[in-house]
């Protein structure tokens, strides 16, 4: 078995043991499933409610991906501007840093007032949450370009644009990916909070309904789906990193700075 397959086998075995112990303890103690559901209860509600889950899950996923796109592109563009253009650094940067210190989630109610109960308000909320990690990592990544690589470009009389495309952008890629990794997690969190507060579909909306009906197994099922999504994002970005950053070595997402 390859080392990676062995690692996976250990991880899966651990999950199986934890689930088995969980199931056994609840059955032995006779805990009510509306209080803490057993894994089997959760599996049953997942299967029974699959149509409901599918449509709400897709709504949340769509809002999250849209929010991420609306955060990532401006984050990279503005981050590059701030890192490269002195004027932008003096004007945009202080403004954005001031905005960043604001608790974005606290704006959720007013954003729902402005953008309504539909997906738009969730996308806006997700985008403003995911923007800052992407933006700050971009600024950081561009600012930490190896000065000797830039000296090399200068010795060749490279234009600013050549230095950007050939040295700064590829060098900042590890930071962009780190920003994306954090950004997408922030996006899904903000979308769910938005759905808690005012929505007619989505996983957040579903969780609020399920808990008001004390349908705890379904709440757990919903949370499980969201966790699985988070894991998919993480491993997806990890795979992307291996493809794009094979040259940097190491599996971990380097250079991540949360805020």
């Amino acid at each position, binding site marked *: 078995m390859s080392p990676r397959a062995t690692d996976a086998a250990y991880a899966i075995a651990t999950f199986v043991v934890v689930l088995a112990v969980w199931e056994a303890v609840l059955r032995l103690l006779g805990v009510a499933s509306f209080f803490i559901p057993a894994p089997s209860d959760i599996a049953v509600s997942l299967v029974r409610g699959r149509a409901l889950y599918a449509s709400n899950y897709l709504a949340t996923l769509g809002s999250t991906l849209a929010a991420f796109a609306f955060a990532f592109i401006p984050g990279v563009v503005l981050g590059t501007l701030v890192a490269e253009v002195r004027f932008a650094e003096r004007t945009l940067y202080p403004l954005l840093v001031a905005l960043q210190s604001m608790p974005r989630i606290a704006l959720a109610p007013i954003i729902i007032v402005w953008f309504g109960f539909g997906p738009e308000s969730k996308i806006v909320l997700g985008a403003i949450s995911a923007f800052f990690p992407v933006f700050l990592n971009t600024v950081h990544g561009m600012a930490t370009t*190896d000065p*000797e*690589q830039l*000296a*090399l*470009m*200068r*010795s*060749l*009389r*490279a234009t600013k644009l*050549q230095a950007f495309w*050939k*040295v700064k952008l*590829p060098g900042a*890629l590890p930071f962009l990916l780190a920003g994306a990794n954090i950004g997408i997690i922030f996006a899904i969190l903000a979308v769910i909070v938005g759905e808690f507060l005012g929505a007619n579909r989505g996983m957040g909306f579903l969780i609020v309904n399920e808990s008001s009906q004390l349908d705890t197994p379904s709440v757990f099922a919903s949370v499980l789906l969201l966790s699985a999504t988070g894991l998919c994002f993480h491993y997806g970005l990890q795979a992307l990193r291996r493809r794009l950053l*094979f*040259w*940097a*070595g190491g599996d971990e997402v380097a250079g991540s700075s949360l805020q």
Partner: protein
Amino acid sequence: MPDGPILDGSAAGRSETASALLQLVRVAKTYRTLRDAAVVALSPTTLEIRPGEFVSIVGPSGCGKTTLLNLMAGMIRPSAGRILFRGRNTDGPSTEVGLVFQRPVLLPWRRVLDNVLLPVEVIGLRPRAAYADKARTLLGMVGLAGFEDAYPRELSGGMQQRAAIARALVYDSSVLLMDEPFAALDAMTREELNLELLRIWQATGRTIIFVTHNIAEAVLLSDRVVVMTPRPGQVKAVIEVDLARPRSMALLGEPRFGQLAQQIRALLRPPAQAAA
């Protein structure tokens, strides 16, 4: 760069040295620190490099060797004096000059061949295919045949520095400026690369200006060794190395080699110690 001939390549300067490739005329460099104090990195220095020469610059740490090299490379501007390349005033970095840094400074996301071709892309030399062939030939010359498609992190430090040398040669630069290029390498690799550099120098007819801490390396490689004083640096002496070429490591045992090395070492010793 202005089109017409630059006339302030002063008449005096020209008449004495019509053959000089690179001339430094009373070049000085002063830095301002953050507290606005002036630090003299290089006292007025006059130096001439002839075409095809191998010149080493040795001096104590912080004497301004690297400053001198960066001035010649056009990477920094002199605070005073003039730097002439083929009798013309320089204005910043020139693609006639190839730089080799202490670290290899390869771009880790590019394969070795693409790293060597970076100058070709940046300068916009054509046809690319011809330069790709040239880059392969150069990689063979520096002993990296078969590593064209490797990534820098797959190479040892010595191999990376070889690639950096190939990169500095690919764009038909006439001068190679090398800033302690082998200082970070182990002694064996260093000796090997010294000999290879001599071979490359002879094969390509480049002018090489080589900064080093290592006296033996300077004597082994050079036609002339420029010895600098401690900070603020200036030229203390220029030693002609009258050893026959081609040279090999066997020279290290010869009396004349020892004499020259001793002469340079004496020049480098601080005055207090020399008097004692």
